């Protein structure tokens, strides 16, 4: 994976493939630590196994690399990856932390684009993006709300696409998340 955006998209693909009808992504960025929590309503996974690359349920190939790769990306920066099964019925919470100041950190990539891409790739899955501000959960994007207003196919309209993209992008930049490492001091507008 080239960047954190790719990792995030890959994790969301897991939720989509597991048939989750809803997935909630929570992002925060404090003291150059990027924290991301993903909660989905999928059937849940066997926690002990998932980080082992040789455990997979698919039949097309015998290795599953998504989670091991993310674990490596996080731990390379002295961060972590944690997966919790929420209850017996299903639902999984996955969280990871990446220290962006660490020399081995990967760049963010275009995170805002990831959320657009999820809407295009898996329109059946409801996606909610939350960026907490002073411990208040700010809902930045809620595909269920969007669907109330328009058919999700509208996302093929570049105007709709730009609007959603810019909405998310603005919030990320406000939190100090850029496409790179977000470690440069804030520049004054020049």
């Amino acid at each position, binding site marked *: 994976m080239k960047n954190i955006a*790719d990792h995030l998209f890959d994790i969301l693909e897991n939720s989509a493939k597991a048939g989750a009808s809803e997935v909630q992504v929570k992002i925060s960025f404090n003291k150059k630590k990027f924290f991301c929590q993903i909660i989905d309503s999928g059937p849940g996974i066997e926690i002990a196994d998932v980080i082992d690359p040789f455990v997979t349920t698919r039949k*097309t190939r015998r290795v599953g690399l998504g989670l091991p790769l993310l674990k490596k990306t996080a731990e390379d920066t002295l961060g972590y990856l944690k997966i919790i099964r929420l209850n017996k019925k299903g639902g999984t919470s996955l969280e990871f932390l990446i220290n962006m100041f660490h020399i081995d950190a990967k760049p963010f990539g275009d995170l805002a684009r990831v959320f657009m891409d999820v809407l*295009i790739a898996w329109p059946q899955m409801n996606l909610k993006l939350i960026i907490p501000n002073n411990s208040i959960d700010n809902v930045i994007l809620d595909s269920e709300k*969007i669907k109330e207003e328009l058919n999700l196919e509208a996302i093929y309209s570049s105007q709709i696409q730009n609007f959603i993209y810019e909405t998310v992008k603005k919030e990320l930049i406000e939190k100090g998340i850029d496409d790179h490492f977000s470690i440069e001091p804030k520049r004054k507008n020049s």
Partner: protein
Amino acid sequence: MKNLEELKKIRDRVRKDLELRTGKHPIKIVVCLGTCGIAAGARETMNTFVDLIAENNRSDIIVTTSGCAGFCEQEPMIQVYVEDKEPVVYGKVDLQAAEEIFEKHILNGEIVEKYLFSKGK
């Protein structure tokens, strides 16, 4: 979610285009989005197609996704389904390849041998 009002305004502006899109889609482009595909850049490939569809104003084409097909070394892979024609699978579809396939295959119906992986079911 803030900004929903603004979204409604844009929706009303592009309403005509949207109505066109809710019909059938005789042409379908399937992008494989397994871990292997994503690592190989399939997201860019998918975005290229979505942008090209918007640019060319083609409401009859839709992009959907699938998982890993088991030929990870060929990623990013796509399948092209055109109504009444055999499905075509392409491998190593990067940005340039996507543009070429869109122009030649999707718009003009000629298969691009250079990136061809397999034909038929």
